[in-house]
């Protein structure tokens, strides 16, 4: 072990958590553990912590996530058993202290006693492309083909100002830190405005206490105060509440954001949560779908709206929303994509 590795071994372990529906309650409280740093992106993590058992449908997502960690890396399964292809993963045995296992694993990684996890997925580009087309980009034309293994985004309508620029469509989730765990949304973005929403998978049904208020505080740029909520009885602490109020939270949430039919909006839901973080308001949800709530919204506002609902309400809203399967069929008819298949010629 060289001297940098020795220094690194003294730092908290950066972990990225992939949360399953039955993740233990202590998962949130890991934020308070001085031996760990919970990071927002796998790029910064040394260890992927799988907390709880993941539904089968999310396996593929976990594999992709796993491969995004930089070497040296390891996977640790907590309250679940390693599944194929994670044969080399560490499992926390019953009664073992999570933090000490993580520290031990990281030390072994740094010292070279433990080999870094190999990729789960095959080492090949998303699409075949090399060497085809006038520039070797895998297809015809300046915008055509799949340069570097992916096609380019295509022009699409915009619902805010009508400038037709390139729309970005992708599934977001299920392990994005700003989305409720387990939720996968297929979003079409023009810039940072959401143009179209389809639900691939609703969030888990879990009733983690106080998830909403912590998520909102984080989204509003107050992660330290969000962590404070994890401390026992913090929400009854008048000084803490004063800090939250003084930060200007009420002013920050735009009025009428995410209004439901019964008149509650993100601001009122937030205030309710601040009073009583463990029993979120149950707004009246009939006829409400994610499209109404999110389309035309800027990213941060959309995330605020999403996280102002508890998981049970969100699942109801998702049930009202178009699913990914619906969208695929509607795409067939509108033909938005083949329109854009530029046969044009980049080089002359």
């Amino acid at each position, binding site marked *: 072990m060289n001297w*940098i*590795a020795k*220094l*690194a071994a*003294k*730092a*908290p372990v*950066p972990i990225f958590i992939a949360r399953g529906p039955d993740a233990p309650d202590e998962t949130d409280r890991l934020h*308070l553990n*001085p031996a760990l*740093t919970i990071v*927002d*992106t796998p*790029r*910064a993590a*040394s260890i992927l912590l799988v907390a709880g058992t993941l539904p089968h449908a999310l396996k593929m997502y976990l594999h992709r996530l796993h491969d*995004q960690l*930089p*070497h*040296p890396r390891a996977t640790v399964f907590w309250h679940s058993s390693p599944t194929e292809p994670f044969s080399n993963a560490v499992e926390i045995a019953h009664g073992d202290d999570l933090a000490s296992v993580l520290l031990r694993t990281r030390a072994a990684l*740094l010292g070279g006693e433990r080999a870094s996890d190999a990729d789960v997925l095959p080492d090949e*580009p*998303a699409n075949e492309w090399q060497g085809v087309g006038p520039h070797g980009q895998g297809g015809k034309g300046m915008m055509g083909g799949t*340069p*570097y*293994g*992916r096609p380019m985004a295509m022009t699409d309508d915009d619902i805010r100002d009508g400038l037709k620029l390139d729309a*970005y469509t*992708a599934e977001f989730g299920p392990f994005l*830190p*700003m989305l409720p765990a387990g939720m996968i949304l297929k979003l079409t*973005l023009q*810039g*940072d405005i959401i143009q179209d929403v389809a639900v691939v998978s609703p969030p888990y049904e879990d009733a983690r206490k106080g998830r909403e208020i912590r998520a909102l505080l*984080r*989204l*509003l*740029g*107050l*992660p*330290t*105060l969000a*962590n*404070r909520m*994890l*401390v026992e009885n913090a929400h009854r602490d008048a000084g803490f509440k004063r*800090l939250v109020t*003084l*930060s*200007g*939270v009420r*002013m*920050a949430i*735009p009025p009428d954001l995410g209004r439901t039919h019964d008149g509650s909006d993100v601001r009122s839901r937030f205030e309710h949560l601040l009073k009583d973080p463990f029993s979120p308001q149950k707004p009246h949800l009939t006829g409400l779908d994610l499209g109404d709530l999110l389309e035309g919204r*800027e*990213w*941060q*506002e959309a*995330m*605020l709206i999403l996280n102002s609902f508890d998981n049970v309400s969100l699942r109801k809203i998702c049930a009202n929303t178009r699913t990914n399967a619906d969208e695929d069929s509607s795409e067939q008819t509108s033909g938005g994509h083949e329109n854009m298949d530029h046969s044009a010629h980049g080089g002359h």
Partner: protein
Amino acid sequence: MMTFALAFAILILVLALGIWFAAVLDGVFSRQLSGHGTVGLLAPFHASAVYLTQQRLRTEAPDQLNWFLSIAGYLSVAATGLAVVPFGPDLAVIGLDTSVVFWGACESLIVVLVFLHGWSPNAPLSLIGAYRYVAIGLPIMLPSMFVLIAVAIPAQSLDLRDIVASQETVWNVIRQPLGLPLFLLLGLSLTLRGPFDYADSDDLAGGTSAEDSGANRAGWQVARLAMLVGFSAVASAAFLGGYLGPVLPGFVWVIIKTLVVMAIVIGLSHLLVRLPVARMLGLIWKILLPISFLDLLWAGLVALA
């Protein structure tokens, strides 16, 4: 030549000390406010060592050149900004009679570099962070320029050395009370912190740095802290009388005042809420800009009185 070498040595000292101290201070604030966390004098070294043991990943079809340039450039601009600060009468690495404008150039280059940092990885969350940052990073420069022009008025010079000298009797923070608060907001924006952290925010899983790993991440975090040092030193020179102070040598005063400004900026970053970006844009143009006009008017009237 000797003065230059001395000034340069102090520059490196302030930068190294400042980066380390800023990292420690951030930990202290986190712990005080959230009631947990570790504070150690060596913690920043341990944390950065972790990055240096990790692989540096690239993404699909990234702009590798700009990725490097944005990180190295951010650090360079931070250090260059710090270099205009006088550590004593006529003891600045860059002794320029238009150093206020020079600092302005640094500010605008930062916007470019942060944008490039988000552009390079070819990833959606970074890209959103980059564009959002430009929306705020550009207009927030206006109030900061106005307050710097306001401090130049009594000094009758755009040279930070003269501006410090003009505060012999009374510091600008008292003479022009609106100046420092407005300038601090710029600091939050330049260092991608707290309420102005539109580039690297939590709602984008790290935004422009979401795809940084290994050495890239280490370099970017160091550069952010270096920027905090550079900004704080400029603020202390423009508003807190820079090297002026009894007994101790000038550069020690610079360090002390820089640390004070740094503590305020870090504190604010933990305690102020981040507005959705369109709201912040309106706030800057409709409220902060008129306030900075007021500051300028105030400075003008005081100078004439």
